Every structure is written in structure tokens, then in C-alpha cells.
């Protein structure tokens, strides 16, 4: 069990706590309120989320926005999302289940088999690293990022903007790993399982499947490095699946077992969860073996952007140049433009795009404004290379996925 480090020392409240006994809880509550106010949480979040969210540091991580302690769900504050690459220690953390073993690199093995494979095999971490190494800069975004902004609200982890990040993922191609055993012609889906599990036996273990066509793409990896370092425990040490372009639900952390199957996998997390209504979203990639008449597994991310240069409502200096900006991303078609409007969406002007780290990565953008005194509403809208743009109105869906509504940043020039 990893021990946790609390922010209490940093907050300077340690002296109050020692020996405080029954007054402890009140100290915590007032501290939580103060922290929430300082977090600039989106005003659209549920009231209870805004009250309960605090900055807290998991071992090895910077203070992130804690939505739930266990399973740990921590989002990245937007100030860490101003660059194309997100630091490992600020990268968001998302788990479904309580029991998260600390995996030892020396004893970890990845086993491969299933009725769609030609045999059984397994790899140690060193053996995995001996396969040809590939590095891909790619956005890892929770399907439910921005769920908390849905109106009406839907239950779940009430994420704001920061259940995402972009890293350079290095590992072996999943197809090279699968080649250790070989796929039968009838292979339909690649089932991936990690080591985390629920505290109750009946809780469905978090297991996902990926259609074979996507699993064997050159960019789909079994990654063991993130930004040049071993994966942090909270991001899947020692190895995780990386599926660039697709939402993070497929990026199995602590992956330990790969099953090649010839029939559609019927586990809860694929058959019932992580589904979107058929035909509502402009997605190209399909998971055909799992589609029903009404819904289908979420697959690729929708085109999106986020202004991260300023907190919403920030005060800027009137009369000088103010540069607003942030990051844009999509499913890997590539960002074509990010357009900015300062007049409520009537007219749009292209922002300057930053360095291109590859079609799956965050693309930074910036735009200079010269505000006179007053209130400003700045909007950013990304368009990708296949002509898809961010939504102007929310596309409702039961689980709160794919929120890519154009964001409005309020600034006060004074």
C-alpha cells in the first residue's frame, strides 16, 4: 500500500491539527472551502462537486484537483495544460475500482492468449523492451472529461476540464506483442485486463476490448515510458495500453493479460458502460462488433480545444497586448485551425498554431488581443483536417461523454 502525502503541511495547518481532536473536522471543512474557491472550478459544476473538490497530492504527484479519494479520481489544473506536453507528475488520475496493487517491475508479466490466438505466451518487462520501440505523442482523455459541465447534470465522476493530458508514450507496438502468439483469421477483438479490482468479488473487473483493426495499427502500443520516464504508478506502471486517438477507457493501466477473442466480449465495461447513442456524434471510427441498434462503444475523441492561458474571470491589463491561448486536439486527423471570436461568435479569426508534435498530440494555439477597459468574452473553436468543428450546443447523452462545446473565457480588462 502506497502511503499518501497530504497537503496539510504545505497549507501550514499542521500546528492546528496536532492534538486538535474533535475540532479537526471543522478545520478540514473550512480548509476545503478555501481550497475550492482558489481552484477556479467551472461554475457549471454541480454545487456539491465545487464544495467537495480540493487540491491533494497522491504520492509522486503534484497537487491535483481531487474529486474522489478512492478510487482515486484527480484532475489536472488547467495551468499544467498550457503546453503540448503535460508533465507526468501533473497528469490526471482515473480509476474505477478500489484495489490498486503496486506492481513490481521484476515480477510483472504480460500474458497473451485466447481462442483467437494461435497459442499462449508471455513477456517480462525486459522482453517487452526488446521489441522494436516506438514513441508517439498522444492525448489521453477520459471519455467523461467535462461531464460536470453537462446541463442537466448526469451522475458519475463530475470532471471539469482537466481529465486529460498529452505525453510522449514509448513502448512496443501491440501488434508486435500479438505476433508473439499470432492471430487466427477469426480474431475479432483484443481483450485487455489490468491488475486493479474491486473490493467486492461481484464487482465487474475493469476489462476492455479493442477491435482487431484498431489494435494492430502501428500507433497502438503497450507503453512502458511516459515523457522519457517509467510510467508513474497512478498512470499504469509498469505498462499500459496506448490507443492514440481513442478515449482513455481503452488505455488499460497495469496491463497484465491480453486475450484474443473470436466473439464479441461481453464484459460489463464494454457491453453496458462507455457507450454513446448511435448516430449522434460525428465519429468515423466504429467498433462494429459491439454496436447495437441504440448504442455503440465510445471510440475516437471528438475535436476539441481549451483555453488555458487564463483562469475564467481573470483580470488583465487594459491598453496592452494580452495573449490568450491553450491546446487543441482531435482523434488524429490533425488540427487544421483554431478560430477565436471576441464578439460572441459573430466573427472568427484564426489563432497562431504552435509546434506540431504529431497528429495525436495537443496543438498549442495563441491569439493576441488589445483590450480597452471592460469585460471580454473570448471563444475558441477548433476545426480538424477532415472538416469537423467543435459543437456549438451540447449533445446530450446518458453518461456525459464527448463534451466539446465551444468554451467561453471571460476576462476583465482593468
Amino acid at each position, binding site marked *: *500500500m502506497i*502511503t*499518501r*502525502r*497530504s497537503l*496539510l*503541511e504545505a497549507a501550514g495547518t*499542521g500546528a492546528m*491539527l*496536532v*492534538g*486538535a481532536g474533535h475540532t*479537526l*473536522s471543522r478545520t*478540514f*471543512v473550512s480548509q*476545503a472551502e478555501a481550497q475550492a474557491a482558489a481552484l477556479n472550478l467551472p461554475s457549471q459544476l*454541480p*454545487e*456539491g*462537486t465545487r*464544495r*467537495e*473538490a*480540493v487540491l*491533494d497530492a497522491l504520492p509522486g504527484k503534484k497537487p491535483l484537483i*481531487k*474529486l*474522489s*479519494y*478512492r*478510487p482515486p479520481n484527480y484532475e489536472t489544473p488547467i495551468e499544467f495544460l498550457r503546453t503540448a506536453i503535460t508533465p507526468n507528475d501533473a497528469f490526471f488520475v482515473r480509476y474505477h475500482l*478500489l484495489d490498486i496493487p503496486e506492481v513490481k517491475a521484476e515480477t510483472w508479466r504480460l500474458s497473451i492468449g485466447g481462442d483467437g490466438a494461435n497459442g499462449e505466451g508471455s513477456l517480462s518487462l525486459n522482453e517487452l523492451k526488446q521489441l522494436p520501440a516506438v514513441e508517439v505523442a498522444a492525448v489521453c482523455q477520459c471519455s467523461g472529461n467535462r461531464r460536470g459541465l453537462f446541463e*442537466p*447534470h448526469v*451522475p*458519475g*465522476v*463530475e470532471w471539469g476540464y482537466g481529465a486529460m493530458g498529452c505525453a510522449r508514450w514509448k513502448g512496443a507496438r501491440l501488434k508486435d506483442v500479438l505476433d508473439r502468439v499470432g492471430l487466427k483469421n477469426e480474431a475479432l477483438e483484443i481483450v485487455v485486463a489490468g491488475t486493479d479490482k*474491486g*473490493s*467486492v*468479488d*461481484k*464487482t*465487474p473487473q475493469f476489462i476492455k476490448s479493442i477491435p482487431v483493426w484498431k489494435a494492430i495499427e502501428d500507433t497502438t502500443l503497450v507503453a512502458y515510458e511516459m515523457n522519457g520516464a517509467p510510467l508513474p504508478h497512478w498512470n499504469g506502471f509498469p505498462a499500459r495500453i496506448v490507443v492514440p486517438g481513442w478515449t482513455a477507457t481503452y488505455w488499460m493501466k497495469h496491463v497484465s493479460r491480453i486475450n484474443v477473442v473470436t466473439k464479441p466480449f461481453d464484459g*460489463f465495461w464494454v457491453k*453496458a458502460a462507455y457507450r454513446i447513442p448511435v448516430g449522434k456524434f460525428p465519429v468515423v471510427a466504429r467498433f462494429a462488433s459491439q454496436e447495437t441498434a441504440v448504442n455503440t462503444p465510445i471510440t475516437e475523441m471528438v475535436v476539441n480545444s481549451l483555453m488555458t492561458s487564463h483562469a475564467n474571470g481573470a483580470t488583465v491589463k487594459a491598453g496592452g497586448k494580452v495573449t490568450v491561448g491553450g491546446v487543441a486536439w482531435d482523434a488524429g486527423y490533425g488540427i487544421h485551425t483554431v478560430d477565436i471570436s471576441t464578439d460572441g461568435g459573430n466573427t472568427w479569426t484564426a489563432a497562431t498554431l504552435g509546434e506540431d508534435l504529431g497528429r495525436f498530440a495537443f496543438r498549442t494555439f495563441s491569439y493576441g488581443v488589445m483590450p480597452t477597459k471592460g469585460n471580454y468574452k473570448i471563444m475558441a473553436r477548433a476545426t480538424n483536417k477532415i472538416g469537423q468543428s467543435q459543437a456549438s450546443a451540447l449533445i446530450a447523452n446518458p453518461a456525459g461523454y464527448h463534451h466539446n462545446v465551444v468554451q467561453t473565457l471571460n476576462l476583465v480588462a482593468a
Partner: protein
Amino acid sequence: MRSIIIAVLSAACCGAVTVAAAAGEKPVQLKKAPGLDKVEANCAACHTLDYIPMNSPFLSAAGWDNEMTRMINVFGAPISPGDAKIIGDYLKANYGQ
């Protein structure tokens, strides 16, 4: 200093939350009302109690019933029908719409 704080927190956690609470974790304070003991005894076995205020106050009575059904039938939470009724009433009264 750190070890002292963790020790104090551990002591606080054992009383305020459940035995499953980890050292260093701030206790989640839910509203004190009838049924809170059943919430603490059952819900915290699988997740910290911050999940409840996080999902408030937008769920209707039917919405909280759905969540209870989901926890029991989908995630296998071993909650007795009697406790489920008490927990549901607590959630609707204190964290409902």
C-alpha cells in the same frame, strides 16, 4: 512532522469514516442525519463518501434509486434491503434535488 500529522489523521479517520480509510486522507464529512451510520457502513466499503456530495444536489428521488440499484445489481454491493431503504432515504433527503 509528517508522521505526527499522519498519526493524528489516522486516529481521526478511524472514528469519522471507516476502517478502510487510508492515512493522510481527509475524512469526508457527510450531513449528520438519520441513516448516516448505514451510509458509512455500506457505501464506504467500495468508495470514499465524497462520491455522494460530488453527485449532488441534482439527482431526483428516482435518480438516487437508480444509483442504489446500480451499486447493488451491477457492482455487487452486499447491501441488505433494509439498509438500502435507509440509505436511499438519507440520500434523497440530504443530497437530492
